[in-house]
């Protein structure tokens, strides 16, 4: 490090409060140093919480390994699924994870188009979250197959049977949607990283680190022409990702909406799934951002402003979701369809799982209303707890849709029930482990906040102050 870095790094990391998106006294250098410092600090300077957190996550990963091995040895029967409930936790988790992923793309794409300056200090982080969530989600459609070793049959490729996928099936739409989503998220995330990788390259202490970052940075040198193309490409990615992110969860919702099963067969699903996805996504961003900013003293970069904005988005999307529930129930009653009506009677009090529905209403609709109060939005612990609750609620929502609807459909004689087994739980917890592991590694190994965009923020602040002065 050079001397001027030395003095510049000790800018007080104070939370500037709810109307600022960056702490006082920051210039191009200090933001750079503070963010890169998180990565470049010596290994042992890593906050202990990181080690503990990683350890726990890693144990869960091993649990997943065991669960999956057993699953492959014995067959999907080790799960609680049965007839008529042929889809269980696997699909619930799949939808849940995909949903969580959506916040990342939303923040980086939609908020970019909407020119929301507060997105900058969380978008990188949220995009990473998207990636890892999609990775977790992606596992389930394969794991849940009766014959997972034939999963590649869902891809169109010329084969000795001259057979092809059946493109009318929503599952094929899923294949295209999810793989596209994963690919786009990766390149979007990496594109965003390139200039910062260059920064890391130039700031890294030892030679190997420099070389590694150097290779990844592709030789970025911040040329004005490059920036011009770069920004254009980034804007286009954002523009394409926006409809993509909406399409992905719509397609996921088609898995249900296209089916005739009462409780699935609902036209309102696409919008309300997308809203739900963003809802849960923001909840997850908060769940992760709040501890991290604390551990790494990033309060001056992830400020109360960010927390509050995200709380507001949660509140908003939460209300859309609430409307979704209401409409679902209303249409069931209004349509007068016998089966449709019963599906909701069953969901709400007749069936064995009525309680899940009410807990979900509590988690997703009742409690988040607290966010109307500014005091609650201003209280970190409150927001954190509410975020956690919403995560649970959104998981339950998918459980209610997938499982409860399946337990009782058309012909009473074949109504059944579903009990998750220990292997269902292990697989679910395991993926949470995978998610956290990757998250911890990312935070430690790559700039978790977009440095160059923070420099822009500094620049704009400077300009606006300039404007104020005269």
């Amino acid at each position, binding site marked *: 490090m050079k001397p001027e870095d030395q003095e510049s790094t000790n800018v007080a990391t104070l939370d500037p409060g709810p109307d600022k998106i960056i702490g006082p006294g920051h210039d191009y250098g200090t933001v750079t140093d503070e963010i890169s410092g998180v990565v470049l600090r010596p290994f042992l300077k890593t906050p202990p919480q990181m080690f503990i957190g990683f350890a726990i996550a890693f144990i869960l990963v091993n649990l997943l390994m065991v669960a999956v091995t057993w699953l492959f040895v014995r067959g999907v029967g080790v799960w609680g699924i049965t007839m008529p409930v042929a889809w269980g936790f696997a699909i619930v988790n799949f939808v849940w994870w995909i949903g969580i992923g959506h916040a990342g793309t939303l923040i980086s794409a939609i908020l970019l188009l909407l020119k929301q300056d507060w997105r900058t200090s969380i978008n990188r982080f949220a995009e990473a979250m998207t990636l890892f969530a999609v990775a977790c989600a992606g596992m389930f459609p394969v794991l849940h197959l009766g014959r997972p070793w034939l999963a590649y049959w869902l891809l169109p490729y010329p084969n*000795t*049977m*001259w*057979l092809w996928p059946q493109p009318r099936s929503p599952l094929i739409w899923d294949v295209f949607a999810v793989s596209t989503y994963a690919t786009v998220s990766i390149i979007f995330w990496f594109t965003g990283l390139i200039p910062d990788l260059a920064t890391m*390259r*130039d700031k890294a202490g030892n030679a190997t680190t*420099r*070389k590694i970052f*150097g290779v990844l940075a592709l*030789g970025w040198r911040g040329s004005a022409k490059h920036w011009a193309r770069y920004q254009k490409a980034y804007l286009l990615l954002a523009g394409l990702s926006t409809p993509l992110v909406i399409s992905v969860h719509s397609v996921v919702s088609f898995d249900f909406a296209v089916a005739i099963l009462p409780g699935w067969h609902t036209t309102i699903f696409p919008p309300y799934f997308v809203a739900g996805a963003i809802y849960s996504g923001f909840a997850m961003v908060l769940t992760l951002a709040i501890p991290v900013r604390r551990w790494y003293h990033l309060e001056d970069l992830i400020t109360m402003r960010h927390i509050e904005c995200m709380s507001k988005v949660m509140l908003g999307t939460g209300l859309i979701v609430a409307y979704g529930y209401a409409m679902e129930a209303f249409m069931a009653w209004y349509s007068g369809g016998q089966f449709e009506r019963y599906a909701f009677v069953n969901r709400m009090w007749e069936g064995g799982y009525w309680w899940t529905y009410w807990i979900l209403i509590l988690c997703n609709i009742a409690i988040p209303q607290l966010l109307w109060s500014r005091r609650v939005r201003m209280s970190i612990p409150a927001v954190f707890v509410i975020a956690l609750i919403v995560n649970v609620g959104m998981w339950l929502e998918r459980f209610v849709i997938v499982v409860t609807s399946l337990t009782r459909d058309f012909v009473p004689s074949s109504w059944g029930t579903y009990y998750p087994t220990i292997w269902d739980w292990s697989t679910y917890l395991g993926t949470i482990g995978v998610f956290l592991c990757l998250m911890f590694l990312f935070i430690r190994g790559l700039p978790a906040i977009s440095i160059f965009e923070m420099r822009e923020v500094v620049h704009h602040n400077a300009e606006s102050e300039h404007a104020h002065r005269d």
Partner: protein
Amino acid sequence: MAQLFPRSSNSLAKIIIAAVVLTGGGVLWAAYTLNAGSFTTGVDVAVDQSIPFSHKHHVADDGIDCRYCHTSVETSSFAGLPPTETCMSCHSQIWANAPMLEPVRESFRSGKSLEWVRVHDLPDFVYFNHSIHVNKGIGCSTCHGRVYTMPLTYKTNTLYMRWCVECHRNPEKHVRPRDQVFNPTYETPAPNQSEIGPRLVAQYKIQSLTDCVTCHR
């Protein structure tokens, strides 16, 4: 700052990118050719049998009809493999004590069956019926190739579903007159295939069945 990488790294980077793309494609191509090759399909690979039975000798030289040994080909799904009796009906007179035929005599004495390795072995979830194909004017050689030229028998077609479907879709390309079905030297498509094909399809009421349950149940 000092350069992190030598000048060459630029060209190196481009080379690597090219290499990755090429190998990717190469691997795919290799996979496909391998899968189509005789290693996996077994096409043109002579199969070792306990007795080096030669169709060439029996069909080409002796002119024995297919049905002499494969008796049930016209009546049953299974073409049938000759019982030891059938072999002995001739070989009790000719080559009566050729050492090569000892297993046959042994089996006849002991009553213990001869064991042959299947050459044309369909997966067990495929239900193929010889009789209907033969009755509809699909000849032996259409699928089994020039058996009369084979000292040791091997298959000349992959028997992949793709191959079956090709004929099930266009039977007119492979049908032959019923009287030619057991003619080992008859080749399809015949020179006048385009003319006789459609006629025979109509005459024999051949349907092009591509339903799954035609073969899978």
